[in-house]
């Protein structure tokens, strides 16, 4: 009884729709005030290279702070649809409620989000921010370090170096900065300036255009004591593999490109489905919709019309490829909602069921 009484204000808040009213009127006042969503304002746009820009963001009072090397999911609305991409925070560590953080984005040709950010974000624009995350962080007492960044993969390395410099902890750090050419090297000036002012920092600028792609011999020539260093690598798969093969004392890797989507299979081929909520693995076989296959395997997912009309069977597809039985449209990106009754499995799947 008492607990129900104490819950009354919260219940009333939502039952009287005051939550929705507050969200609306606060957002009318300023988009960054909208409750429940963390929104940042772009305060500066810096051209880094021909295809890379840094966006300095004011993340607002709700920013929880982050450790150098972590990334943050950035959400924007493109043609009416909210889309999210992760970006490493290229500025150093931040405290809760920090005034600014920065992300550095290379425009991937043909990409959905990164070229849009370049074309549309300007000072005053608003973007949504998720929670900063990631384990690509260097403890200040990690001993001798080797930080390897290639292409846009230099962004978390920049953050780590900035952070170590701010803490005066650049004791014995080697940065290998690989880029296609000098005018393509993101943050080269920043690294050069830090190198000039910190004795413990050595920066090796490798430019493919002049020296060819970095190979094992060149890497070892640059960093003969590689075996005693804890390495952090972010960049093209080949570069990361090179560092791993050279045998550093320990290796931390950050990957920008998601694992490739699973192999597309024939609609009739059996697929294995991981049901992540109930922690079950089943094999779905035979023709028909995912709903039918799940039911044949003994599952009882929530459903209604079985026609793709009522949305009762809508659920989150964590990974895998499905095809809409009516329109033929494919869903292959992770974390998309699908309707079981009109979806045909085209690969192994994970569903939030």
């Amino acid at each position: 009884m008492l607990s129900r009484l104490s819950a009354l204000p919260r219940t009333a808040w939502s039952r009287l729709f005051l939550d929705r009213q507050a969200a609306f009127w606060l957002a009318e006042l300023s988009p960054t005030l909208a409750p429940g969503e963390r929104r940042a304002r772009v305060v500066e746009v810096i051209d880094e290279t021909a295809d890379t820009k840094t966006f300095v963001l004011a993340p607002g009072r709700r920013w929880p702070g982050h450790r150098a090397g972590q990334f943050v999911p950035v959400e924007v609305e493109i043609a009416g649809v909210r889309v999210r991409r992760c970006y490493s925070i290229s500025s150093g560590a931040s405290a809760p409620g920090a005034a600014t953080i920065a992300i550095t984005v290379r425009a991937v040709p043909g990409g959905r989000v990164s070229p849009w950010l370049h074309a549309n974000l300007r000072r005053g624009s608003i973007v949504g921010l998720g929670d900063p995350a990631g384990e690509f962080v260097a403890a200040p007492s990690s001993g001798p370090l080797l930080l390897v960044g290639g292409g846009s993969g230099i962004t978390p390395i920049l953050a780590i170096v900035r952070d170590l410099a701010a803490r005066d902890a650049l004791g014995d750090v080697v940065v290998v900065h690989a880029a296609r050419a000098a005018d393509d090297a993101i943050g080269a000036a920043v690294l050069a300036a830090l190198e000039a002012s910190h004795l413990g920092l050595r920066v090796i600028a490798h430019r493919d255009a002049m020296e060819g792609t970095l190979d094992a011999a060149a890497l070892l020539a640059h960093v003969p004591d590689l075996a005693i260093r804890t390495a952090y690598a972010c960049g093209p798969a080949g570069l990361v593999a090179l560092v791993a093969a050279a045998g550093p004392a320990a290796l931390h890797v950050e990957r920008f490109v998601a694992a490739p989507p699973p192999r597309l299979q024939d609609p009739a081929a059996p697929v294995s489905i991981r049901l992540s909520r109930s922690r079950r693995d089943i094999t779905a076989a035979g023709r028909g919709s995912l709903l039918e296959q799940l039911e044949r395997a003994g599952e009882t997912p929530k459903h209604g019309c079985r026609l793709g009309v009522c949305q009762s069977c809508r659920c989150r597809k964590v990974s895998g490829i499905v095809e809409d039985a009516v329109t033929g449209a494919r869903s292959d990106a992770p974390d998309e909602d699908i309707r079981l009754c009109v979806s045909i499995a085209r690969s192994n799947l994970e569903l939030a069921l």
Partner: protein
Amino acid sequence: MNPLAAPARTLTAAETDAFGAELDALRAETLADLGQADVDHIRRMIKLVRYTEVAGRALLHFGIGPLTFAVGTTALAASKILENMEVGHNVMHGQYTWTGDPALDGARYEWDIACTGDDWRHSHNYEHHTFTNVLGKDRDVGYGFLRVSRAQRWRPAHLAQPVGAALLALLFQWGVGAHDLHLDETLRGEQSLAELRRRGAPFAKKAAWQLAKDYVVAPALALANAPRVLAGNLFANLARNVWTFAVIFCGHFPAGTEVFPVTSIENERRGDWYLRQLRGSANIEGGRAFHVMTGHLSHQIEHHLFPDLPAARYPALAPRVQAICARYGQPYCTGRFAHQLGSVAKQIARNALPG
């Protein structure tokens, strides 16, 4: 004039499939075209809901005299109508879920009316839209107590249905709210009291808060103006009830709409389903503002063919749907509001009598 006088041509299986494929293509084309304009529209509507509500409530709370009362009540009624019809009903169909905006997520939206969102998603999105106009399956055919078609068995209680329909109009949100409780089944002894109580609990809770909102909290905040605010809320709710009743009854009950026996949905193909949606629904003609105020349910036909397409798309789809129907010799029931409403009234009066 109801162009529906011509009976529907019976289609061969191949024609039915082709008919369905044409409508599927129209749907796919629209889906592929969804974008900023659609989101902008629904956000504009939400803005309109909020601003008219604040304007209406402010005029009721702080105004003096009958003029501000009338304008305030009208604004509040308009806000409720828009929220229930153009925003709530359409968002809850999942018409805007593709935006990824949590405020527009069809599975989570809760509308500002006595009926709970979850009850509605079950009784309306699933039952009514799947089994549209199938006797014994679609509980929206006469809502369990009205005889709207001669195909329904006559009972003496139907003699009173003109009065019953008028009462339903005034209390429409309560009728809608109680719809998924299956009260009629409990009365007939087909559903236990315990089951009724289980089904009814969420509705009872929501209803209590809805009553508290308009008839306790709002008047209390108005202090001396409390009676005026209470009356304004009452009239706004009544106006919303009568309006939604009128629009919704014109959607499936005017002359020219058909009901179907349960056997008609055995082995129903996709094209058959489309045909049944078409023949069971009726449109209302009107201008842009009228369509918006009906939540585009004035395009009931397009809504039943494409319940998950943003409703604001229906006016542009309508001529193309009508052209497809014409090519396949299918009726397309439409008429002006007064005409359709008159037709519904006639149906209710006519079917009150046996035969």
